[in-house]
């Protein structure tokens, strides 16, 4: 029963993809929608092949990946250290946690012109912007993870004569890790998206800039090729991280 329904669900999904691709193909052939907006599918696939072979493609990708890596590294470091430092005091947690989550509700994009003003239109402004976006979910989840550790565990560890380092290693860290990891995952995708967004809006190089440039030069096939590349990378990363996550859940399950 279950197999039949999941089989038909798969069939419907395949059908939808098939219809979408056919529709795209037909639109390209007949020109029902302006080819500037929806270029023919064979033109896009050709542009993708050409694009991947150019050196410009790889240098843009390198710039963007470096920017994301730097931004994420800063966000992780500040987010985890800051978040952890805050939870060492109940008072600080109570004061700062609502402040940080309140700030998180403000779209940082509003301040993007200030990042450009402060760091110029090179990669630095995108690093700062991506790091600022990634910082909040990581810090909030670090606070939630470490502040949420049951006091009884800590008291028990102390009563059994654990050192501070031992308590951290064997009690705090395992208890907080799943929540912190969720923050790391959310932070990564926000960082990823905001670096691309920053590059699209105002930048000299990078993948986001290349997409905007292709649009400005009215080269829709190349723009679609870039978009396809980004979408593929995003879906791949998503898959990878959910794999890591499910493996870790299995590891956490062993301990209990």
């Amino acid at each position, binding site marked *: 029963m279950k197999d039949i*329904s*999941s089989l*038909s*669900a*798969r069939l*419907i*999904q395949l059908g*939808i993809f098939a219809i979408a691709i056919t529709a795209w193909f037909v639109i390209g052939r007949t020109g029902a929608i302006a080819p*500037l*907006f929806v270029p023919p599918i064979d033109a896009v696939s050709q542009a993708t092949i050409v694009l991947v072979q150019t050196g410009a493609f790889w240098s843009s990708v390198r710039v963007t990946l470096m920017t994301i890596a730097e931004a994420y590294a800063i966000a992780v470091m500040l987010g985890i250290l800051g978040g952890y430092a805050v939870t060492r005091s109940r008072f600080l947690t109570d*004061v700062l946690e609502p*402040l940080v989550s309140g700030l998180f*509700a*403000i*779209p940082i*994009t*509003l*301040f*993007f*012109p*200030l990042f*450009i*003003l*402060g760091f110029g239109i090179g990669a630095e402004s995108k690093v700062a912007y991506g790091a600022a976006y990634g910082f909040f979910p990581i810090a909030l989840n670090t606070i939630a993870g470490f502040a949420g550790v049951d006091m009884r565990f800590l008291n028990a560890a102390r009563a059994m004569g654990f050192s501070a380092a031992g308590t951290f290693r064997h009690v705090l860290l395992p208890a907080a890790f799943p929540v912190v990891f969720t923050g790391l995952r959310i932070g990564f*995708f926000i960082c*990823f*998206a905001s670096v*691309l*967004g920053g590059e*699209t*809006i*105002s930048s000299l190089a990078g*993948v*986001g800039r290349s*997409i*905007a440039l*292709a*649009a*400005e030069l009215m080269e*829709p096939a190349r*723009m679609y090729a*870039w*978009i396809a590349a*980004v*979408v593929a990378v*995003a*879906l791949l990363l*998503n898959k990878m991280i959910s794999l890591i996550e499910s493996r870790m859940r299995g590891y956490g399950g062993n301990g209990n």
Partner: protein
Amino acid sequence: MIVIGVFLLWEIWTRVAGNSELIAPPSSILRALFTEILPDARIRNAIVVALFEILSAYAMAVAGGLAIGVAIGSTNLSRRALFPIVLLLYAIPQVVLLPLFTLGFGIGPAAKIAFGFSHGVLPVIVNVVAGMRNMNPIYLDAARAMGARRSDIFRDVIFPNMVGNFFTGLRLAMTMTLLGVILAELYVSTAGIGYYTRLLATTFDPAPLFALIGILTAMAIGLNEMVRTIERRFTRWKTQ
């Protein structure tokens, strides 16, 4: 208290360290707010347009997301077939599609509304479907056995059950719609807030720039708080 302290420090620091091309002290921002930003009818107009874009994109995202979410979540088969596609779309960083929106909708408010909508609609769909999934089928059977019509079932059984998820979706949708509209404004704009922030940023005139950003931030906080207040009102019965 901390907020006041930060502003005081900011004032003193900018007065002493004085890098007047990048950061302005709060007092001159406040002055710029009343002397340069608010008296300028074009900037006032741009702010009103931005608010209009956000609100219409949000209204469309909520209505569309609710309709699509209910359609997807209504049967087991449609959920299993269509929900993975929605999640797939949700995983794509939508900024890369921004130039496409400009190509399709031009550089006026329509592109901003469309981009805000596409950001806001997905969290609503995802949360509506999630809310309908954890429905206990016994309630549905009972309602049907007691002769409830489809519309009654939706209003009195399904909706109250998913209300928590629905409002989570509304809150996220507001954040995302704000993000989408502002991104689109910053990307290309000939008369909107994006144009003025860019103008002020490139002319190194930080005081009015900070003032404008301050207004927009206040607007964003106000809209978020509005959604939260509505959420509290409608979910109060649950905690009682």
